[in-house]
């Protein structure tokens, strides 16, 4: 089932490539380069959703001591770090081409970077050698604190450079219908792919946990 989902996601992403390259018109001011947007935006969104899933899973771990929720957190955090890392890289390439700099203190870009740091540390914490029960609660606490930090990071980054032109916001309203359709399709396709990745990883972790338990029962 998850493999089917992965295939569907892959196919959908491939289909979106056609939309991106042949269907959506070229942006007037930003030119061809704007087409990165169709990968960049879905990556960012699904990274944020991953972290939200980590938050919800962490709450479930704390409230119900659920081990399955903990494994879901692990899977979602890994995919989230991957997606936000790719968001950063595509964003940097875009920035280099469009504005001539690799990095600029845009609120969204900075928030993505700080989130990447936070959840990379979260994954580091997961890899530590701790008693399983302790690791679950420790990671859940960090998972909750990390997500609550996100809006604060975003607001602070915005105050930090309050004079920065709102590059993204101004274009959000000005998308042509074809572009909007393409963007929505890309987000949906990326969502399928994201779900497949998280599902695959979660299933692996479930299997590993079952094997662990089976080993324990033998003694």
């Amino acid at each position, binding site marked *: 089932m998850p493999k089917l989902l992965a295939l569907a996601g892959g196919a959908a992403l491939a289909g979106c490539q056609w939309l991106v390259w042949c269907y959506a018109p070229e942006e007037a001011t930003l030119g*061809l380069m704007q087409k*990165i947007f169709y990968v960049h935006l879905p990556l960012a969104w699904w990274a944020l959703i991953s972290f939200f899933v980590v938050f919800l899973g962490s709450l479930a771990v704390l409230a119900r001591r659920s081990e399955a929720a903990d494994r879901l957190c692990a899977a979602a955090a890994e995919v989230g770090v991957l997606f936000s890392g*790719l968001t950063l890289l*595509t964003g940097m*390439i875009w920035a280099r081409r469009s504005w001539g700099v690799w990095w600029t203190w845009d609120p969204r870009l900075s928030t993505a970077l700080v989130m990447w740091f936070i959840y990379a540390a979260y994954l580091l914490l997961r890899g530590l050698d701790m008693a399983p029960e302790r690791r679950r609660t420790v990671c859940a606490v960090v998972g909750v604190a990390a997500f609550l930090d996100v809006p604060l990071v975003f607001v602070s980054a915005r105050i930090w450079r309050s004079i920065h032109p709102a590059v993204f916001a101004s274009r959000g309203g000005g998308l042509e219908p074809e572009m909007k359709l393409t963007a929505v399709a890309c987000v949906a396709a990326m969502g399928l792919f994201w779900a497949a*990745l998280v599902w695959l990883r979660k299933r692996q972790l479930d*299997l590993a946990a079952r*094997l662990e338990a*089976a080993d324990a029962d033998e003694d």
Partner: protein
Amino acid sequence: MDTLYWLLAANAVVWIGFGAYLAFLAGRERALALRLARWERSARG
């Protein structure tokens, strides 16, 4: 064509990233399959 070059680089980065994670998943899958096989052997015999 300079823009296209940048565009290709960005897409390449994305697919390399996905590929790396999928490779990681595949590696884990293989390790798990090995462990499962070993466990089944020991459980039967």
